[in-house]
C-alpha cells in the first residue's frame, strides 16, 4: 500500500470519529464507558513512547535518559517546544560525552 493511500485511510478514520460525535449528539454514553475512553489516549501515547524509545538500535540507553529528562521538563514547564528541545539537547550532549 502506498503512503498516500494510508494517509487517505487515516484521514477517513479520523474524520469518521470527529463526525460521529456530532451526528450522535443526542445519544448518551454510559459513564463507565466515558471514563474508560478518557484513558485510551494516555495508555496509547505511553505505549508509543516506550515502544519507540526502547526500539532504537543505536544509543538506546542515551535515548531513554533523554526521554526521562524531557518528561521532567514537560512536567515542570508544560511547553511542547521545551520538552522536544530539552530532550534533543540532552541526547546530543550525552552522545558527545559517551
Amino acid at each position, binding site marked *: *500500500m502506498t*503512503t*498516500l493511500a*494510508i*494517509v487517505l*485511510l*487515516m484521514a477517513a*478514520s*479520523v*474524520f469518521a*470519529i*470527529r*463526525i*460521529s*460525535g*456530532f*451526528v*450522535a*449528539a*443526542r445519544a448518551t454514553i454510559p459513564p*463507565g464507558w*466515558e*471514563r*474508560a*475512553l*478518557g*484513558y*485510551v*489516549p*494516555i*495508555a*496509547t*501515547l*505511553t*505505549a508509543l*513512547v*516506550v*515502544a*519507540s*524509545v*526502547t*526500539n532504537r538500535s*543505536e544509543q538506546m540507553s542515551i*535515548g531513554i535518559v*533523554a*526521554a526521562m529528562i*524531557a*518528561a521532567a521538563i*514537560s512536567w515542570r514547564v*508544560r*511547553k*511542547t*517546544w521545551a*520538552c*522536544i528541545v530539552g*530532550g*534533543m539537547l540532552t*541526547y*546530543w550532549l550525552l*552522545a558527545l560525552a559517551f
Partner: protein
Amino acid sequence: MRGFLAMLPMWTGAIPVGLAFGLAARGAGIDALDAQVMSLLVFSAAAQISAVSLIDDGAPAIVLLATTLLLNVQLLLLGLAAGRETRPGWLGRISGAFFLTEGSFGVAAAIGRLTLPSLVGAGVSMYTGWNIGTALGITVGDAIPDPRSIGIDLVAPLAFLAVLVPLVRNRPAVVTVVVAAAIVLILTQIVPSGVAVLGAGVGGSLAGAWFAGRPEMAARR
C-alpha cells in the same frame, strides 16, 4: 473570528509539534508531499506522529489505522459535547467535525458559550499553525544530510511525551501509564511493536478505568 484570534497563542504549541512531525516524517523517509497532505487531511498530531513511527517500523496498514482510532477516541466525546451545545446543520457538522481538536475545543469553550463559529475559528487557526509547522519541519528535515545519525528519530517520542505529560493529572492516569508501559515492554518481546502498542493501549486504559471506578476513588468524586 473570535475563536481564530483566541487561538493565536496556541500557534506557539501547534507550530513546534507540526515542525517535529515534519522533521520526523522526513527522517523516516516519508515523501515531503505525503507528509504535507497528511497534515492537510488528517490534522491530528498524535495520529500523524504515530504513523511516522509505525510506517518506519513497517507496520501493516490495519495496525496503523487501529492506532489512529485509539489515539483519537476522545474526539468522539468532544464531538458529542460540541454537537449537543451547538446543534448544527449538516454543513456545520462537517466543518465543525473536520477542524475539531482538543486544543480548539478547549479555547472555544473558554471564551464563553460554545458556538459553531468560535469552534471552527479556533480549529482553522490551529490548522493553519499545524500546517505551517509541518512545512517548516519538512524544509529543515531536508536540509539535514543524514537525520538518523543525529538521532532525529527521537523527536517523535519526545513530541508524544509533550502531549502525554499534561494529561497525567491524577492517580488513575498514573496507573494507566504504568500498566501500559509494562504491557508494551512485555508484548514487544513477543509480537510486532505496532500490535504491542494496540494491546497496551487497550490494557492500560482498562486498568485506568478500573482504578478510577473503585469505590474509594468514586467516593472522592
